[in-house]
């Protein structure tokens, strides 16, 4: 779970970015990427106006992987217009079912 530091103004940007990314839906599972546990970290740096997202995909061959990564960049660039967004893909740790939040599980089972 991401941390929240009330004394750090960048935290508010990060928190909003987390919420914004809930609008990116996996087109097959119909669950947003935050509840699927695909996003690992979001770091905002207001000094250099930079947002760095570290995330993964369910597999390297995920057919919609490219669209999801593009969607993350598009979504954040549309909201934080004066920030540069860097979406970094990682395979470590690999995504697993345990990454899915309780809310995500509820939506899948829904």
């Amino acid at each position, binding site marked *: 779970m991401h941390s929240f530091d009330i004394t750090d103004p960048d935290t508010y940007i990060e928190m909003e970015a987390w919420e914004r990314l809930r*609008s*990116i*839906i996996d*087109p*097959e*599972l*119909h669950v947003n990427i935050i509840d699927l546990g695909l996003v690992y970290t979001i770091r905002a740096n207001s000094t250099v106006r930079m947002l760095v997202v570290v995330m993964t*995909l369910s*597999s*390297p*061959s*995920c*057919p*919609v*992987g*490219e*669209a*999801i*990564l*593009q*969607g*993350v*960049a*598009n*979504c*954040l660039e*549309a909201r934080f217009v004066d920030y540069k967004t860097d*979406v*970094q*893909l*990682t*395979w470590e740790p690999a995504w697993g*079912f345990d990454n*899915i939040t309780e809310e995500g*599980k509820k939506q*899948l*089972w*829904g």
Partner: protein
Amino acid sequence: MNMITKQHPELYPIVRAHYLASAVCFVLIGVLFFFASADFAGHYFQPKLLAITHLAALGWVTMVIFGAAYQLVPVILETGLSGYRLPWLSFVAFLSGLVLLVCSFWRFEPGLCMQGGALLLLTGMLGFTTVIFLTGKRLKNKKENIHQEMINTSCIWLLATGVLGVLLVFNLRYAFLPQDHLQFLRLHAHMGMGGWFLLLVIGVSSKLVPMFLVSRKQNLWLLDWVYYLLNGGLLAFVIDTYLEGINNRTYLIALLPTAAFIIYFIYLIQCYRSRMKRRLDLPMMYTMLSFILLLAALLIQPLIINAHVQNTAQGIALTKLYGLLVLMGWLSLLILGQAFKTLPFLVWLKIYGPGTGKEPTPLPSDLYSQKLLVIQGIAFTGFILSMITMALSGLAAPARIASGCLLLTALCYLLNLTRVLTHKKTTGHA
């Protein structure tokens, strides 16, 4: 940034051409089925049934499998397709060969047209197999998995089926094969159905079904058993039937592929029971139901062997039912479901992929019509029921009902497919 498998822009037109050509063949089958409904009462080895069977096996099923494989093999093997020119060459050779072969079967003219058609079809198969093998060679981690082994082996069976098919076509003219033509036809059909269709479908679906259902449990070691039992059974059947024909040993041999399928059924059930996505959409429901039709076909096998060993007339009707259940039942329902699981993604990625996250977009499942999919399912159920009645009773009336239902199914499918392929960009959920 780590790399991911991206969709190549040249992939879409290749896949689209295969899906469309296959759907047109499906409609043609519906039409030809009507004109040949009286012939279904007789023996399966006759011109019109040969034409329809090859149109179904090659034009409807193999064509869509080629298209789907070009789309899915890169996903399954986690690497890009080896090239984009060879699939086109393969498509042109395969389609022109199909037209020649089916027309010459329908009129039964075993001359140059039929021979040229068979050779062109084999060329198309060779092209496809080359693409798949070269794609496998590009594997990033070089470690073969069971899915890849199944896909590669199924391609070998496809080529073997094609080579035997070419020999059978030439045999109609020059009669050089050492044994009865029907004996080889039996081998040709089983190599195609078991080695090509079944092995490939298991190889691909064993990866896709748990992916679509979000299954926690995937006992991949079960698939090793499926692989060896199925291939062992097929090899044993081909060798034994070639040497001795259908005999008492065939019962034992038939147990091997049946056991393979039962194990695969267990694998599917485990995937289904451990799924995290509760609700099955219609395409997945059709997919799961299609395997029940295959199970029904396999249950008929001992009766067919018995009819052949005892030399009773029932064998012909049962063989027709078996062939119809596999080709027009299992494989058709599988395609009718899976086409709407895979193709909408390709179209969605092309239209909405670059703009995701900027504005609300429809989901891939919004690209096809649910209503048409329901009508298609009802018409297909009517087709299956009347087809079973027809095969068992030998009457022409159920054959006419079956052809009507089949044509309606095919038209719904073609219409829905066209709807997906001609989708125009919209915003928000459809």
